[in-house]
C-alpha cells in the first residue's frame, strides 16, 4: 500500500496511530512518575483527537460522546488523581531505576513487529490500514503489560492498566468505529469505578506497607525460603 493513495482521514488515523504507539514507548522508558502520568495524559489526548476525527469524518455522533468521555476520564480525571497521589506520597522526585532498560525497549520494538505478524491474517479481510491501526493498538496493549512488568510503582501499574484500556479503545474506534453505545458507556463506567477503587487502594496499601512499591506486596507466596 502507499500512503499517498489514501484519503486524508486514513492518513490522519495512521499518523495518530503512530503517535499513540510512540507515547506507549515513551511511557515504557519513563522512570519518573510525574512524567509518566503526563505522557499518559498525552496519550489520552491523542485518543480523544482520534475519536473526534473519526466522529467528524464519519459524522458518527455517538463517537463525540465517547470522545468527551475519554477527555474527561483519561485526560483530566485519572491523571489528576494519580498526580495527587504521587504528590501526597511525595514520590514525585525519586526516579525508579529501570533494570536493563535497553532490553525492555528492544523487547517493545519486537512486540510491535510481533503484533503485525499476529494480525497479518486480517489483511485479506480488509484494508491494510486496519491492519496497521489494529497492530498499533495491540502493541499498545502489549506495551502496557510490559510497562506493568517492568515498573515497580503501583502508580505505574495503574498507568499501564489504563494505557491498555487506551489501546483497546483505539482499536475499537479505528477498527469498528466504536463499539455499540451501551458497551461504550459500560466500559467507561467500569474505568471510572476502577480509577476510584485504585485511589482507595493506594490509600490502603500506603497504610499497610507505607510505600507504593508492589514488590513489597509479597507476603502471600509459597516458595520455601
Amino acid at each position, binding site marked *: 500500500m502507499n500512503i499517498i493513495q489514501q484519503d486524508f482521514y486514513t492518513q490522519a488515523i495512521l499518523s495518530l496511530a503512530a503517535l499513540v504507539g510512540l507515547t506507549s514507548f515513551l511511557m515504557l522508558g519513563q522512570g519518573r512518575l510525574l512524567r509518566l502520568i503526563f505522557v499518559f495524559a498525552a496519550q489520552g489526548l491523542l485518543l480523544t483527537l482520534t475519536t473526534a476525527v473519526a466522529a467528524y469524518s464519519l459524522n458518527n455522533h455517538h463517537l463525540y460522546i465517547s470522545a468527551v468521555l475519554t477527555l474527561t476520564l483519561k485526560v483530566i480525571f485519572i491523571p489528576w488523581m494519580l498526580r495527587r497521589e504521587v504528590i501526597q506520597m511525595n514520590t514525585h522526585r525519586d526516579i525508579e531505576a529501570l533494570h536493563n532498560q535497553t532490553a525492555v525497549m528492544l523487547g517493545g520494538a519486537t512486540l510491535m513487529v*510481533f503484533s503485525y*505478524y*499476529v494480525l*497479518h*491474517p486480517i489483511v485479506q479481510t480488509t484494508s491494510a490500514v486496519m491492519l496497521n491501526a489494529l497492530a498499533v493498538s495491540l502493541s499498545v496493549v*502489549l506495551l502496557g*503489560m*510490559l510497562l*506493568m*512488568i*517492568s515498573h*515497580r510503582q503501583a502508580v505505574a*501499574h495503574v498507568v499501564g492498566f489504563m494505557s491498555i484500556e487506551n489501546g483497546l479503545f483505539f482499536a475499537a474506534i479505528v477498527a469498528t468505529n466504536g463499539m455499540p453505545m451501551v458497551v461504550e458507556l459500560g466500559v467507561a463506567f467500569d474505568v471510572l469505578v476502577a480509577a476510584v477503587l485504585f485511589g482507595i487502594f493506594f490509600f490502603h496499601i500506603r497504610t499497610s506497607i507505607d510505600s507504593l512499591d*508492589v*514488590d513489597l*506486596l*509479597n*507476603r*502471600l*507466596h*509459597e*516458595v*520455601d525460603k
Partner: protein
Amino acid sequence: MILVLAYCAVLLSFASGLLALLMNQRATLLELSQYWFKKFPNSNGHYLRLIDSNLKENRFSHLLRLTVFAVLGLSGIFAVLAGVSVLISKEIVTDQISLGLPWLPWHVRFDCLSGFFFLIIGIAVSAVSLYGPGYVHAYAEKQHPFAVLGLFTGLFISGMLLVLLADDAFFFMIAWELMSVASYFLVAFQHEHAANRRAAFLYLLMAEVGALAIILGFGVLASFTDGFTFDALREAKLSSTWASIAFVLALLGFGMKAGIVPVHVWLPEAHPVAPSHISALMSGVMLKVALYGLIRFCYDLIGEVQWHWGVVLLVVGTVSALGGILYAMMQTNLKRLLAYSSVENIGIIFMVLGLSMIFMDNGHPHLAALGLLAALFHGFNHALFKNLLFLGAGLIHHQTHELNIDMMGGLIRRMPQTSKLFLIGCMSISSLPLFNGFVSEWLAFQTALQVDVLDNGVLRSLIPVAAAALALTAALAAACFVKVFGLIFLGQSRSRNCDKAHEVKDKGMLAGPALLAGLCFFSGIFPGVIIYLLNSVAGQLLGQTLPNDSALGWLWLAPVSAEQASYSPPLVLIAALIAAGISFWYLRRNPATVMRRAEPWDCGFGGLTPRMQYTSSAFTMPLRRIFAKVWIIDEQIDKDMQGAMNQDVAAIHYQLQVHDHSWPRLYEPVAQAVNNIAKQVGRIQTGNIRVYLGYSFVTLIIMLWVIS
C-alpha cells in the same frame, strides 16, 4: 423370587445402618410417642407403657444395639438364602434399577458366582451379628458413637453385596467405592490414635488408586465396544495385547484390594485398627469381594483367559503366600499377624487361580474347573476361619485388653470355650486333615499334580516348584499358628491382665465364633456339599463341572478320577475315632494308674517363672535366622553394667523390630517424588505480582504465536 431375597439382604443391611442413626435421637422419639398418644388418647395404653419403658435412657441404647444387629443378622440370613437358592437353581436373574445415569440405569445380575460370594458374606455377617452386640457394648457412647459404627457397618455390607449384584461398570464402581469408603470410616473409627489415622489414610489412598486402575481396566474393555453394561463388555473383541493390558490393570486394582505382595502394606495397617468384628469382615470377606472382582473380570468379561496371565498370578500368588506367612510369623500383635496371614491365604488363592487359567488356555477345561473350585473353596474356608480367628482375637482383647502375644499366656484355663473355638480356627488355617483348610489345600495340590497334561516345558517345571512353595507355606502356617495358640493360651500368663481374665459373659459373643467353627468342621468333613454348590459356579463360568466320579459323592472326594486321587474325610474321622477310642479305653482300664499332679521339674533353679517361657521372638528365632533376607530386621541388645569397673552385667535389654521391605522400596519413594514435584511446582507462586503479570504476558504471546 431369588432376586427379592438378594434385594432384601441389601436393604436390610442398609436399614440396620439407618437404624443405628437413631442412637442420638432418643429424645425425639420420646416426643414423637408422646405426641402420638396425645393425638390418639384412646389407643392401647399397653403399647404406650411398652414404648415408654423401651425409650428409657438405660434400656434404649441396649435395645437399639440389639435391634440393629438383629436386622443385620437377618440380612445375613437372607444373603445366605439368596446365595444357596441361586446355586441350587443354577439360574441367572437380571434386573434394572432406574437409578444412575439417564441413559445407563443400574444393571443387576445375580448368577452362581455372585451367589457363592453372597453365601460367604451372608455366613460372615450372621456370625458377626451374633457377636456384635456384646462386643460394641464395651465402647463408650461419648467417645465412640455407636451411630457412626452402625451406620458405616450397614453401608459397608450393603456395598459389598451390591458389588456382587452389579452388572455394569458404573454401578460396579459405585458399589465398590461405597464399600471402600464405608470401611475407611470404620478403620478410622477409633481415630484418637495417630497410628489409626495414618492407617486409615493409607487404606483410603490405596483403595482410591486401586479403584482408578479398575476404572481404567473397564475403560480399556469399553473402548472396544459400546456401552458399559457387562453384557456389552463381554462382547468386546480385544487383541491379546489389549486383553493383557486390561488384565494387568484389573490385577493391580483388585490385587491392591486383595492385598497381594508388594501392594499389601495397607492391609496389616488397616485391618487391625478397626473394631474386631469389622476386621473380621474386612479380612475375611472384603478380600473375597476383590477376588470376585478379579474372577468376574477375567473369566467373565474378558472371556478367553491367556496362560501367561496364569503364570503371572502363579508367581504373584507364590510370593504373596510365602511373604505373607513369613511376615505373619514375625508379628507380635495378634491382629496384625492375622492380617498378614490373610495376605498368605489370598496368595494361595491366586496361585490356584493361576493354575486354573493355565489349564484353561491349554485346553483342559475340567482341570481349569478343578483349579477354580480349589480357589473358590479356599476363599470360602478362609472367610470362615479368618472370621473365626478375628472374632476370637476380639474376645481375647475384650477380656484381657491385650493384643500383644508376648503379654498373654495360660488363657486356656481362664477362657476354656474361647480357647476351644480358637484352636479349631488354628487347626483349620494350618490345614490339618479333618478341617476345611486341608480340603482346599488338597484340591490345590491335586490341581498342581495334573501338570503332566501340559506340553509347555517351562510350565511343567514351574508348577511343581510352586506346589513345593505351597507345601512350604502350609508348613510355615502350621508353625505360625502353633506359636499363636501356644503363646496365647498355653503356658503361664505373662501379664496381670491375663491373670485377671475370665470367660466372656455374653453368650452371643461365643455363639458367633461357634457357628463359624462348626462350619469349619462341617465343610472339612463333608466337602462334597460345598463342591456341589461350587460345581454350578464352574458350570456357569467355564461350562464345565467337576467330575466327582464316586458312588457316594458326599462321602468321597475324587475330583479327577478315583484312580488318580481320592479322599474321604468321614471315613478318616471314623478311623481316627476308632484308633483314639481303643487306645483310650486300653490305657484307662487299669485303676492303679490314676493320674497324679505335681510341680514341673525346674532343673533345680527353684520355681519356674513365666519369664522363663519362650516368647514370640524366641520361638521364631530359627526361622528368622534361616530366612533373614526376607525382612528388614533391626535387633539390638544392650546391657546394663554394674559393679567394679562396670564389668558384670546387671540386666540385658533385647529389642527386635521387623519391618516390611515394600515400605522403603515402594511407598516412600513415591511419596518423596510427589512431594518434590509439588515443591518445584510451588515455586511458580512467587508472591510477586510483576512475575504473575509476566506469566500472563508470556502465555498470551505464546498462544498468539501458536495460533498464527
